[in-house]
């Protein structure tokens, strides 16, 4: 099916002014839709930069003390917290998500693939606050019982996030493997390789950029997740020392304090938002660059 826009198929015979107006209106709505990201970027940068310029970006990022009441703003504990929770989520979620993706793309009989896809789609639709609630009522007590601590921890956050990133990993992972040209698969199978050998020797290496993109986007989701994380991580602005330590994340920092912050405190939260935004946009670019590398070959 050709993806050519209609515009290249030839001008229509009728070209009343109304047609022009319609086209102009459509163009305007397209531009308005595109303007959203520009506004947000400009706003995030505009409200974060003055604060960072005053306190110094390095001091803000590496400062290990967050005491808004004393005017001390260092977000290193939150950066470490976000990193710890995300690493835990990816360590748990990536094997499961990519294995499910591989299964769906190559091994699953049609009758089994449908319910698995349905489940993943449902997981994608469940609101994050429901995940957080599940974590709060099931996982936190579980961690607490096993570790005889409070249970609000990196581990609880990582487990909740691992489930939340599954849809990204499975759907993008399956797409990546399914987009390998069929000749590759057929060639390998014709040479007598088993399905598994074909998968590991041909399909996964070829689909690697797409799989990497899936993991990077999953990472972005985990870093950006807010509600589920604040409900299970305990929100203590201290460097985590183990999987069982409570942590505060960048998102939690903003969500929990924005409502009442004022003055410098509010400015600092905008700066936190800017750090978060820059990091996630960087990840998104990385993912896009990675999957574009695949298409060129």
């Amino acid at each position: 099916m050709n993806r050519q826009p209609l515009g290249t198929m030839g001008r229509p015979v009728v070209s009343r002014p109304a047609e022009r107006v319609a086209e102009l209106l459509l163009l305007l709505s397209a531009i308005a839709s595109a303007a959203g990201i520009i506004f947000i970027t400009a706003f995030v940068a505009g409200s974060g930069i003055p604060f960072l310029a005053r306190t110094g970006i390095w001091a803000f990022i590496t400062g290990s003390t967050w005491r808004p009441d004393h005017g001390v703003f260092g977000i290193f504990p939150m950066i470490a917290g976000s990193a710890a929770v995300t690493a835990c989520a990816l360590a748990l979620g990536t094997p499961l998500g990519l294995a499910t993706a591989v299964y769906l793309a190559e091994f699953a009989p049609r009758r089994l693939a449908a319910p698995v896809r349905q489940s993943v789609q449902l997981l994608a639709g469940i609101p994050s606050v429901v995940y957080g609630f599940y974590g709060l009522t099931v996982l936190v007590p579980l961690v607490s019982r096993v570790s005889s601590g409070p249970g609000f921890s990196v581990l609880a956050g990582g487990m909740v996030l691992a489930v939340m990133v599954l849809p990204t990993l499975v759907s993008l992972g399956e797409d990546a493997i399914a987009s390998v040209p069929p000749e590759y698969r057929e060639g390998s199978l014709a040479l007598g390789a088993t399905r598994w050998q074909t998968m590991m020797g041909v399909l996964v290496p070829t689909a690697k950029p797409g799989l990497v993109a899936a993991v990077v986007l999953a990472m972005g989701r985990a870093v950006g997740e807010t509600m589920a994380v604040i409900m299970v991580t305990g929100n203590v602005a201290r460097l985590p020392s183990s999987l069982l330590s409570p942590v505060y994340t960048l998102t939690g920092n903003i969500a929990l304090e924005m409502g009442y912050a004022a003055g410098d405190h509010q400015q600092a939260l905008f700066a936190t938002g800017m750090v978060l935004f820059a990091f996630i946009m960087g990840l998104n670019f990385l993912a896009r660059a990675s999957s574009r590398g695949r298409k060129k070959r």
Partner: protein
Amino acid sequence: MNSRRQESLARVALGSAACLTVAVMLAITGQVLASGLSHVSPAFLLEAPRSMGREGGILPTIISTAYLTTVALAVASPLSIGAAVYLAEYARRGRLVQGIRFATESLAGVPSIIFGLFGFSVFVLKLGMGWSVLSGGLTLALMILPTMVRATEEALQSVPARYREGSLALGASRWQTVTRVVLPSALPGIATGVILSVGRAVGETAAVLLTAGSALGVPQSLGDPARSMAVHLYILASEGISMDRAYATGSVLVILVVLVNAATNYLGRRRVPGRRKHAWSRPSSSA
């Protein structure tokens, strides 16, 4: 290990991974529904909460959620359908189109807390709308825009070119072709985008909490604050007000998600046969 044994082992391992994925979904929805459904009664849905939500129902939060979603759709639908029609039917390939597509795709990657921050400082503070249905709805509109643009564009692209050619050959103008031939055939796909957006707007918490507030009343106008069901669940659970009510509210949300899924699947089957074997409703970075 010979290759046949390796093959069957791999099958078992991958199959178990897929089963585990399904099991996780069942465990979460099952737990919430099992603990919550028994508290969901007509009274729960139709009564106002008493003593901060410890007693009574959730009617105001249902109404607030509906208001917020309606405002979001009212703002985002015309914009995103217009944008998608322009991209799919009018635009020639070029810088402008690439830029617009890149911008909407980037918007899809923005985490919800950043939308919340933006909405809070621009709509709530700078434009003086305060914590209100309007601030929340506008913020949600920004968040669902990418989903709707993408779904509509895909729906338009899956309309066979011969429909357009036939219409144009009969002397219809491009606008007539788009409004009377292309859009009607793309309707199931567009509806899918709208329904997915409703799902996202209903479930969104962080951005709504920052922009619509958490006042527990029925908003009387666009300028009144509102507490959505998702925010209500968050407050009930995190402040330990009532776990029973929280489970019940969670059940209502899960049921809505299941309905949204069923609706998109139904529409997906009715679509004009597209290029893709199966259309993932791609998870955008909702949070």
